[in-house]
Every structure is written in C-alpha cells, then in structure tokens.
C-alpha cells in the first residue's frame, strides 16, 4: 500500500493550484504569507515616513496613492490610519498566523509524526483557499473610494460600527469583516486537521513523549485557535449586524455629528465587543508565538548539537501558556472602566503567565550552554528570537500590572512591547523555520552568506526600531497619532521618530535581500543533501523529491525521542529517531550501560515522564 498515492495522474492545476498535498499547501501558505508580509512591511515604512517627516512632501506617496489619499505628497490622516490598520491586520493574521502556523504546521506535522498526509487533505486545501480569498478581500479594500478600514486592527465599535464616524468605517470596514470571517473559516479548517493528524496519525513508536517540540507547539496552537477563533467569528458577525441590519449589540446612547444626530440604538455595550475580541485577541498572540517557539526549540537543539534542555518542562510550559492564555484577555481592558475587582483577577493571571515563559527562556539558555554551536542561518534567527522574547517579555510585566497600565496604556510602550515579543520574535521564528526547512521544501539550501547579511541587518534594525519606542511610551507619547503637534513636550521625539524610520527603512531593505535569496534559491540554490543539518526528526528521512505520500516505502518506525544529540558513547553526534536501540540496524551501536534517558522501557522510572504516562493513558495513545 506504500506508494500508490504517487500514481495519481497530476495536472498542473492539481499539483500546483488546487493541490491536496500538504507539502504543496505549505508552500502556498508560505508564498502567500511572504507576499502579504511584503505589503505589510511596506505599509509600515510608508506610514513611518509621515511620523518622521510630517511636513515633508513625498512624491512617491502621491504616485502610489493618488491625490485622494496623498494630496501634495503627504498622507491623508484617515488613510494614515487605514495603513496602520491594514498593516496590523496583515501582520497579525495573514503573516504570523497563516504564514507561520499554516506553513510549518502543514509542512512538518505529517512529516515529523510520520504520516502520509493530513487527516483530511481536502479540508486542508479548502483551508488555503479560504485564506487566499480572505487575503484578496482584505487587499481589495485598499482600492475603494472610502478607503480601507481605519479604526485600528482591533476595530472597536462604535467607531467601526458607524459608517459616518470616519470614512474608513464605510465599505472598507465591511470588507475587513468579510475578510476576517473568511480567515477564521480557514484557521478552523486548518486547526481541526492539525489536531486530528497529530492525535491519530502518528507512526509506529511515535508516542506523545517522542514528538518533537515543534509538533507539541503546533498541536497546542491549533487547540488554542479552535477554541478562540469562533468567539471572534461571533463577535464579528454581531458587528456586521450592527453595521448592516440596525441591531444594537454594541451601540447605545450615541449622538453622531455631521448631521446624523441621535441614533435609534439603545441597550448595547461597546465593551462587549472588546471582551469578545480579546477573548480571541489574547490567545491569538500565543497562536502566533508558540509555533515560533516550537521551531526555535528544534533549530537550537539541532544546531547546538545538544538535546533540548528539559523537554518535559518545555511541554508543560507550553500547556501552561495555552491554558493561561484564555484567562488573561482583560489586561487589554484595564482602563475601559471595568470593575476594579476584575482588574485584580486579570492582573494576577497575567503575571502568572510569565512563569512558563521564563522557564522556556532559561531552558533555551541551558541548551546553548556547553553546546557545539553551528551558526547556520536558521540558528542565528533562533538566537535572535530568544533575545527578542526576553526583551519584549520583560516589558509585559509593566503592562500586565493594572496600576502601571494606567500610564502606559496605548502609548508607544505597548507598541514596543508587542512588536518585540510577538512581532519580531515570531518573524524571527518564521525566518529560522524558512532557512532551516528550505532544503526540505525545495531540495536546495538558501545562500548562507546572504542569509548572514539578512540576519544582522534585520536584527540590528529591529532593535533600533523598537528599543527607542520604550522611552517614547514612558514619556506618554500615544500610539496611532498622525502627528505630534498637539503637545509641545512631544517635540523632542521627532528626532527619535526620524531615527526609527531610517532604521525601519534599513530593515525593509534587508528583507529585499531575503526575497532575492528565497526566490533565487528555489531555482538556483545549491542542491541539498538528504539531511543537511544532521537532524534526528523524521522529515529528513523522506526523499527530497515532491512525492505524494512522503515515503516511497514503509513509513519509518520510531525508536527514540528526537533529541539524541552528542550521546557520549555514540560515534555520530546525532541518532535519528528511526534508528533502533539494540543494534537491529547496523548503523549505530549504543552501549547497554550508557545512561541514556531515551530508552522507552526505562522512562517510567524517571519522575519527569510520569506526566506523559498520564497523557498516554488519558488519550489511550501509547504506541511504543
């Protein structure tokens, strides 16, 4: 039964367009994500021009956006907000959710757990095409006469509910909602698939405690998404009703200027939307960062030639983050006037979630300690991720503290915080993944020299962009401002804004190097060997060629966990998961006395695997 998948007659359309093969779908997600990312980053540079040089006329803006949105070469204030909104939406949902999770869950789940494909390849295909459709709808809102949605990516009503409140709340907002609804459908179709595949389709020997941390991260991410996205779907639909059908879920006691007058709606609550939004919105940031952390765990372990330190702790902290992430959404709403007691609850939960995050960081450091670090491109981005995760994570302790949030809420401190901890971190996780698994996707390696240049420019410019923003925020400079003429005490920050914008342009240019490297390496990159990084996981045992069903013969059986690097008595510094212990295969001989933690039969004796015995029995999934 092994290879009959390969005999389908494949046309161009079935192979490259409406493909049901998870590897092809992952490439589709990646390339769409990259295209969206290019637009998102370009938008950020364009609106940063306005912040740095508010008085300057930029012919390029006029050339791009025309007289309506950039008269005299300066962005219209509404369109500035539109760019900010679409930038946020693109980066959060389209790049870092679909582009990151969609790409690597699709690529790695079947390959690393040893499955021929996803549980439902058809749903997988639908997931991509809903995502694609959603991207098209979102981008189309840039081309309508009232402009794109412009109330910020959090689209708080009443601003977003009332078409007359600002031009961007017209058709642009309707399109935004349609795009997000399509996006959620895509995320749900994907998520169900990922969970099913991980739970049901692992190969022989791949028990839960032998899964690479990437798979754990993807699994928990999918569960988070499945539980939280429907809430935003509901919230978004209600907002749609308020906009189009005259309901009053979020509207009450409103008098709108400009000749509109008092509205009929009464009894609704704008804060309800914030609750629904952040019930997704907060888990969403973990949906973004967890796959990046999973990728980092794998990449760091492979390239430090060391087992990941504290596998069990890593899994437990992932689970801890996943559970707690549902209990902290209120920290986005400390100053909405909600009951102060509720504020105390969210304060406590928010600071507790820092503990598992801290454990993960320390474990990364311990993995590097006494390693034999090879600075591959992927490894460098993984190290960059850890650095950003520390810097951005620590500022979370300010914002999660309700009392401090009173001064810091919606200032540049927040912008700095989340751009480091989930923006830059997740982008670096994605880059680490791209460089690391590029050989697996395309059979070639990316040019490492260009990769190094890309890394250093991006790393330095990201810090140059986001680090000064902490100071701006601490001085009370509000975010989402078109200019800062309002108060004279903001004047000193103009220089800083110039500095940040120049750094952002540098960072943008660095991505051009990446784009060149990526697309040219697909066709002209150096041919990669079967297992270029010397990694243990199963994906490197599958042939490089595009092969429906992944392995030509039997799916390999798993005999060990994925982190047998630099075993003291082994000849090689890595032992792939499909290599048996007792020397059945003649590849590696492991001395029987070696105190190795990976022998399945010895595991129950170790205290830290008790958890897995539990999980195994709970799911009834032990397969060893």
């Amino acid at each position: 039964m092994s290879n009959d998948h390969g005999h389908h007659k494949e046309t161009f359309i079935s192979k490259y367009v409406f493909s049901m093969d998870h590897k092809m779908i992952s490439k589709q997600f990646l390339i769409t994500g990259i295209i969206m990312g290019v637009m998102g980053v370009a938008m950020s540079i364009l609106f940063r021009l306005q912040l740095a040089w508010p008085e300057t006329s930029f012919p390029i803006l006029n050339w791009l956006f025309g007289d309506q949105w950039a008269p005299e070469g300066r962005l219209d204030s509404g369109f500035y907000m539109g760019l900010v909104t679409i930038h946020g939406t693109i980066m959060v949902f389209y790049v870092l959710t679909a582009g990151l999770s969609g790409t690597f869950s699709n690529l790695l789940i079947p390959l690393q757990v040893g499955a021929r494909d996803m549980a439902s390849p058809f749903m997988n295909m639908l997931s991509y095409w809903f995502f694609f459709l959603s991207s098209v709808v979102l981008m189309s809102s840039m081309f309508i006469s009232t402009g794109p949605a412009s109330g910020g990516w959090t689209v708080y009503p009443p601003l977003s509910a009332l078409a007359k409140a600002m031009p961007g709340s017209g058709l642009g907002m309707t399109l935004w909602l349609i795009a997000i609804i399509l996006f959620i459908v895509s995320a749900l179709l994907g998520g169900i698939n990922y969970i099913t595949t991980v739970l049901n389709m692992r190969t022989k020997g791949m028990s839960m405690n032998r899964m690479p941390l990437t798979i754990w991260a993807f699994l928990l991410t999918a569960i988070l998404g499945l539980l939280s996205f429907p809430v935003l779907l509901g919230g978004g639909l209600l907002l749609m009703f308020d906009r189009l059908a005259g309901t009053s879920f979020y509207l009450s006691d409103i008098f709108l200027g400009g000749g509109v007058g008092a509205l009929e709606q009464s009894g609704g609550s704008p804060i309800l939307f914030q609750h629904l939004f952040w019930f997704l919105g907060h888990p969403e940031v973990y949906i973004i960062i967890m796959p990046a952390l999973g990728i980092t765990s794998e990449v760091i372990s492979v390239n430090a030639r060391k087992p990941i330190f504290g596998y069990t702790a890593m899994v437990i902290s992932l689970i801890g983050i996943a559970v707690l992430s549902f209990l902290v959404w209120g920290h986005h709403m400390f100053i909405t006037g909600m009951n102060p007691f509720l504020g105390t609850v969210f304060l406590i939960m928010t600071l507790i979630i820092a503990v598992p995050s801290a454990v993960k960081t320390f474990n990364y450091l311990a993995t590097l300690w006494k390693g034999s670090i090879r600075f591959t491109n992927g490894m460098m981005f993984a190290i960059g991720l850890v650095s950003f995760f520390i810097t951005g994570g620590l500022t979370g302790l300010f914002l999660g503290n309700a009392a401090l949030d009173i001064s810091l809420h919606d200032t540049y401190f927040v912008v700095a915080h989340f751009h480091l901890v989930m923006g830059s971190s997740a982008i670096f996780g994605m880059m680490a993944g791209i460089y690391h698994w590029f050989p697996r996707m395309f059979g070639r390696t990316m040019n490492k020299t260009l990769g190094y240049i890309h890394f250093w420019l991006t790393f330095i410019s990201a810090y140059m962009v986001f680090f000064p923003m902490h100071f701006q925020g601490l001085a009370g400079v509000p975010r989402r401002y078109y200019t800062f003429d309002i108060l004279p005490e903001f004047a000193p920050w103009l220089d800083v804004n110039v500095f940040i914008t120049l750094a952002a342009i540098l960072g943008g240019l660095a991505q051009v190097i990446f784009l060149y490297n990526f697309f040219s390496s697909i066709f002209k990159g150096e041919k990669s060997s079967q297992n270029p990084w010397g990694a243990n996981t199963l994906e490197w045992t599958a042939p490089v060629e595009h092969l429906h069903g992944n392995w030509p013969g039997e799916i390999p059986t798993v005999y060990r966990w994925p982190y047998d690097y630099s075993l003291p008595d082994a000849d090689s510094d890595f032992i792939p998961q499909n290599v048996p212990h007792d020397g059945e295969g003649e590849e590696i001989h492991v001395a029987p006395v070696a105190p190795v933690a990976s022998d399945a039969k010895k595991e129950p004796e170790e205290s830290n695997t008790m958890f897995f015995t539990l999980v195994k029995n709970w799911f009834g999934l032990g397969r060893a």
Partner: protein
Amino acid sequence: MKNFSSKSMRLHFLKTSAFAFLLVLTSLQGFAALKIQTSATGLPVSEEVVVAGEKLFKAKCQSCHQLDRRTTGPALAGVTERREMDWLISWIRNNNELRQSGDADAIAIYNEYNGTAMNVFADLTDDQIKSILIYTENGPVAPVVVDGGGETPVVDEGLFNKTNKILFFLSLLVFIVVVLIIKTIDIVGKLTGREVIPWNNVNAALMLIFLIVGMIAGLYELSIHSKYVLLSNASSAHGGELDNMMKITFIITGFVFFVTQICLFWFSFKYRAKKGVKALHYPHNDKLEMIWTAIPAVVLTILVLGGLKAWNNINEKPSASTAQIEVFAQQFAWQVRYPGADGALGNSSHNLISEKSNPLGIAIPWKAKEILAELEADLKYYEEAKAGLPEKLGELKSTLGGRVGKDLKNHKKLIDDIESGKEASFYDLQIRRRNTQIKRIKLSLSGEAPLYSAAGNDDIISDEIHLIKDSSITFKLRSRDVIHSALMKEFRAQMNVVPGIPTQFTFTPITTTKQRRLDLNNPEFDYHIICNKICGNSHYNMKIKIVVETKEEYDKWMADQKATFAKEEVKEEVETAEPVEAPIEEPTEHSGEVALN
C-alpha cells in the same frame, strides 16, 4: 518680506526618481507683528483681533485645520480669497444646514474630504468668526525678532538636502560593494573548495560584539532620554506610588534583562563549534528547573502584590466630599461641565443633544421643548427632501451636459445616488431616527422617566478644566459618539470614555500649573487631557487644557463663569419644572464599581 501665503509650497515633482524628495519648511518665524492691513471681512485689523482669532482657532479649528497645509480639513490660509464672506460665515456656523440647503460648494467639499463632516459651531458670533478669518489671513502674531539677521529667510531643505542625499547614495554604494566583496570571497571559496571566511567564528564574534555595542547603545539612549520619562514628579497624590512601582519593576526586569541577554550572547560566543569538541549531552536537571521556576514565581508574587495594592488604592471609592465634574468627549473636542452653585450635575441624555443649542444634552424641560421644535423642523426638511427627489433628479439630468472631468464624475454620482435609491433610503433612515428621538423626548417630558431636575439649570460648560490643588476630584466621563480615552500623563491618570457606559476617575492634583512651570523651567507648560483611543480622522488633535490652581484662584475663575442656560426663561420654567423634580442621583449612571462589563 516673506509672504505667508503657502501657495508656493504646492510644488510639483517629477515622479521619475523615488529618491528625489525635497523638504519644504514653511516655518513661520514672522518679523513684524501684523502682516496685513486690511481684511476681506471688512473689520479693522488690530493685534487684539488677531490674537482673539488665534485663540478661537486653536480652541475650535485646530483639531482639523492648519493654516499652511491640509490635514483632516483643508489648509485655511487664503480661504477668504477663495470663498465669499457670507458663505464662509454660514458654512462655519452650521455646515450641515448649508449642505442640506443644497449648496453645491458645500456638497463638493463634503465629497472631496471623503464624507468627513465638519463640526457645527452655532455658538460663534459673526465677529468671532470674522476674527478667526482675520487670523487665517494674517497668521500668528509673532513677537518681533530681537536678534539681528531676521531678514534672511531660513531656507532649510531639511532631510533631503544635498549632503544627506550624497551620504545616502554613498552608504548605499558602500553596502553594495561590501555585499559584492563577500559574494566574491564566497565564490572563491566554492571554487577552491575551502571556506575562506570562517563564518562560524565570525558570527560568534559578532554575537559578542552585538551584545557589547547593544548594551552601550541602550545605556547611552537611557542617558539622553531618561529626562523625558515620566518616572518622577507626578502631579497627583497617587502618582508617587505608581512611580515607585514602576521603578521597582524596572530594577527587577532590568536585572533579568542584563543577566539573560549576557548569558544568551556569551554562550553563543563561548560554545561555538570547535574542531574536536563535542557538545555535552545534558537533557535535563529537575532540581535546576525547579529553581528557575520557583524564582520567577516568587519575584512575580512580589510584583503582583505591589500592583494589587497600588491598583486598589487608585480605585478606592471616592469619599462623599469629593467634587464631581463631567468631562464630555466628542469627535474631536473635549468639554467640561461644572455643577454650579448647587454642587450637583444635572442629568443629561443623548436624545437632548443639539449641536446648535444644547451640546451636552443637559436635561432642562424648556430646552427639551426647544429641541423638539428643532427636530420637527428637521423632520419636515427630510420629508420634503425625499418628496423632492424625482424633481431633483430631473434637474440634475438636465444639467449634465457640458460638464467634464471631476465635476462630471461628482455630478454622475449625485444622479446615481438618487437613481439607486441610496439617497431615499438615507432620508428614510434619518426620518426614522428623528421620529424615535421625538418619541423619546416626549416620553421623558410626560414624566414617565425621571430625567429632568433643576440641578442642570446652573451647570457651567467650559472649554478649560480648572482644578483646585490638594482637593480630590472625580471626573465623570461621558462620550457623545465613539470611544475616547482621557490621558492625563502628568497625573498618571487615564480612563476610557465609552458611549452609553459612564466611567470615572478620581485623583488629587498636588502640583499647581504655576509650580510645575517653575519645576520644568518652562513658562509655556500646561496640563492637558489628550485623547488616547483612536476616535476618527482627527484623533491626534483632541485636547483640553487643565489648570491646577489654589482655592483662591479657582474661586476667582469660577466667579467669572456663567451658568450656560441661565436665561430669563429658566426662572419661569424652573417653577413649572419643579413638580417633575427627580432625585439628584442620576438614574442613567451608576458608579464605576457597578459598571461591571
């Protein structure tokens, strides 16, 4: 002499080069006090008039207009040359009415600015409007420049001057050269079959260099920017506690930041792959992991406890003696309402808001009747407008010929809106809204809902907030339209302003504006509320001044304030209104404690 008019700045550029930017600064350091002698308004020009106009401009117009450039609305310099004076006055006073009357220019402006409607300023007198217009003609009254050399106009090409352009191209060139060199070495390496650049060691060293340079750069930035950071000198009683909390968090996070970042980059450098050195197989150490789970847990507990204490102190229920004022937010302005002599704020309702006559919707019966009449007139207008649509369509179609370009496009859009029924359905919606509003007001007047009280009669509405030093104050926050947020950074205070849900913030100012000016050595300084929740196109320009002063100064200011609706009629009406008098407690509002969302 440098002409203020900004037409010269409408420069047109070739699009051929994306790099050919040019900065035009219209920095308006005037040389003489007045630049114009006569005004299109017909009023005599004097410094006082210009100053009065400037003050009004800053209070009413600046949130959407600048003199020299387009922001949310058009640039206003030279507007008196572009428009008729009568038209300007009626437009400024009530642009909605002008638009409703079918004025083609008014509709064209509305369309040009993507359907953003201008606020109504019904309370401005003709003379006030004219003073604003004189200000737009003259520009700010600049102090006479004392230093010599005032005659040489400063031409600052700014960012895109020659030097910078050259620098930019040079650095680009250097970068390209570096890339090419690296690329060449790479190719040489490939051809000779050995690595020319020991990349692993280079990158490891760069990691270390990044750590050192990054830390130095970070500390350098700290040294230059820390003086702007709001970490001390809070102007409110609770601010000191917050600042301490912030400092403690800084110390803890700063320590962790340094230790972990140093470990990360030092390990990266130290444990780079070396020939013959194998990594240590060290998969876990339960004790170590317990330790570094426990330490963050303990530290976080400390932070949680501190945070809870500060948070609960700030949110303590205000005492009964705490004064209350209402801060009212709308797109894009703040207003404040003082309770007047009776010490109680009158009730209000969004149904009673009229941009013309009752901007805050204070519930006063005679006012409500006035608004009813306004609404009836409005209703009649919409009904007539709807009935007149077929006629209007015919007229529009007959005048279609001969139009070109943008004019034709706008004209076609007008026709299209009528033909598609869009216009009619808009009128239907407005008719329905007005009817609902009329019904609600009538219901409230019938006494079924206890809305009206005498408390509102002496309420004072102001464009400036005055507070007494060392006396606690509760800001009752109310929004007219969308969510705003009142950020008062010096007081370490912020609270969202949510339509339909009353919110509040209580604090005690402890530093007067005067004292703060001395502390900062900045005689221009003022406290402000600025808006900190995106609320529309002019969100970035929404502020109101706060003056903190002594009790005496406050009393003096208060004595000058007049109750907004203190008219003869009030007294008569109050008598008749008395029977309906309701408890002072506002039925529509509940304290922040109860507003559990």
